[in-house]
């Protein structure tokens, strides 16, 4: 069989047309996602030279990443902030999603969802900056409290610290958590809740035994959607923390761009990715019982 007829056959086959359809996306993904990732992976096992990356294989960057106290504590802080943001966001998002799904009239639901997404209309940067205005030393809260005479000098506990990051990020990611939870709540057959009560359980116990377990897939999606990006966030620490309390992403930025130690930055980045993946998988493994076998 000649190459030409093979080619003609391939073009007509289902696989061929499928490949043709995905190829623009695939090329885009390979160039802009897979290739940079591969570069980072490669850099992480090479040696740092002066303004260049020496092609000499080493595990030294990883050893430095995992043994240096500074990197370890920044990594732990980032993880802590992410976990706190995730827990807070999901805890606040769940009642909102529940309210919209169960207590808003069907005709008004889309209006509510529309209102929930309004924060997305402004850029993320502006929203973060607005929190700075609210929480800052001369911000809305402090000046308000001072004007009413409740406090004499500005509170420092509400800005330039980890709690401020958590508040800012939790607000920024709220719609990301509300929407997946809302979707699973919408899918729950309402007769299941009646069945729960019919079988003798109170409304609250029915929620615990029926609604909550059935909404776990949505909670899982919300957790991952919030947890994964927040750990890499570096805008908020810069603006809200004034750059004084670095997170892991700020660390990577400094190493890569300021200190020009690309291999070490890459090793930290890969390690952070590995940790996020491990934590996410562990989370999914723990709740696996609720994720399968539903129809």
């Amino acid at each position: 069989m000649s190459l030409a007829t093979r080619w003609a056959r391939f073009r007509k086959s289902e696989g061929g047309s499928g490949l043709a359809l995905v190829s623009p996306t695939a090329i885009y993904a390979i160039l802009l996602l897979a290739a940079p990732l591969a570069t980072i992976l490669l850099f992480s096992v090479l040696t740092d030279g002066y303004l260049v990356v020496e092609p000499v294989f080493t595990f030294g960057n990883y050893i430095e990443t995992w043994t240096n106290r500074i990197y370890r504590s920044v990594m732990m802080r980032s993880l802590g902030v992410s976990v706190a943001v995730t827990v807070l966001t999901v805890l606040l998002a769940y009642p909102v999603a529940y309210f919209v799904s169960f207590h808003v009239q069907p005709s008004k639901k889309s209006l509510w969802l529309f209102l929930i997404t309004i924060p997305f209309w402004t850029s993320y940067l502006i929203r973060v900056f607005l929190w700075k205005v609210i929480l800052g030393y001369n911000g809305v809260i402090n000046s308000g409290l001072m004007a009413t005479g409740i406090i004499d000098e500005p509170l420092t506990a509400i800005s330039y610290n980890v709690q401020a990051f958590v508040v800012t990020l939790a607000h920024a990611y709220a719609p990301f958590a509300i929407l997946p939870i809302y979707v699973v709540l919408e899918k729950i057959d309402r007769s299941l809740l009646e069945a729960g009560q019919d079988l003798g359980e109170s409304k609250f116990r029915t929620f615990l035994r029926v609604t909550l377990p059935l909404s776990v897939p949505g909670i899982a999606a919300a957790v991952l959607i919030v947890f994964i990006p927040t750990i890499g966030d570096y805008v908020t620490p810069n603006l809200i923390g004034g750059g004084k309390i670095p997170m892991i992403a700020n660390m990577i930025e400094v190493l890569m761009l300021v200190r020009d130690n690309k291999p070490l930055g890459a090793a930290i980045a890969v390690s952070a990715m590995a940790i996020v993946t491990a934590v996410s998988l562990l989370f999914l493994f723990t709740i696996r019982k609720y994720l399968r076998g539903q129809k």
Partner: protein
Amino acid sequence: MNERPTMIEFQDVHKYYGDYHALRGINATIKAGEFFSLLGPSGCGKTTLLRTIAGFEEISSGAVLIDGKHMEGVPANQRPTNMVFQSYAIFPHLTVEENVGFGLRRERLAKDVLARRVGEALEMVGLKGYGARGAHALSGGQRQRVALARALILKPKVLLLDEPLSALDKKMREQMQVELIKLQRQVGITFILVTHDQEEALVMSDRIAVMFEGEIAQLADPETLYRRPNSRKVADFIGTMNFMPASVVSESGGRIEVDTQGFGRVEIDAAQAPGATTGNGTSIGFRPETLTVLFEGQVAADRECMATIEEVVYFGDMTYYDVRLDGMQTPVRISMRNVFGRPVLDIGTRTRVAWSPGALVLFR
């Protein structure tokens, strides 16, 4: 049956949804151990009425009593009723066992006692050995059985069934009808079934309430409902009924003399006019199987008249003849059991038809 105690009592029950009047003064009593059906077309309020018993709908006025107790303000989880939902409402995140044992959790039984009771309930509905299966791995019929076991394991005073068979195919439905009747006799619990399928109601029930537009049109046992419907509407909804224009000539001493278009003058018993006067015109009704096409040599047991066959529908075991009785403008339907060796008659045949005044019902 009359000596049985009352289990459910509706006292002038009204239900409004905004301006919509869904239940318009329901008065009825359902007896303990009875298989009771609420029958009617969709939107007649039968499901709403069932849900007022379960506690899922609050009534606007009137009262619902279960076993002599007023149910006002009693939430669904504290009522002595359990329900089999139309969608079965099987918890998808639980196994069959966990579904069936759902309502027993509060009783904090020992593990082996719980397992035994769940096992018994599953055996009762013919699902022995299915306990460990996930709910998603069940067929429609099996889901229905799980829903039944889950409700019956709690030994309710009343079991409510909301169109439980409507999602099953015909064979399965007929099988489940028989099983439900047997189950009800076995457990002796009051069953209340909501259905729009008149045949299902006739097959299964001790008594049936036929509902139209939020009102009970007739409440009777299946035979009475079939033989003596109290309105044209009920007659039309249950089975097939032929109608013939008629007028009342005289009425005295429990006898009514009626002039009919097809049968001429006929005298019937007052019991054959069970309905109230509606003013919508007078007519005589009769079921297709109460007429017989007579073959040569056959003699009518009661009366006979002449007719022309206009349409023949052959069903194998049955034949439907649409015949025009002499003197009538519109045809009436006759259903006949086919007997081996007797031919199916052709369209256009002139034939004698046997009928009986005792099978007529007067509507006026």
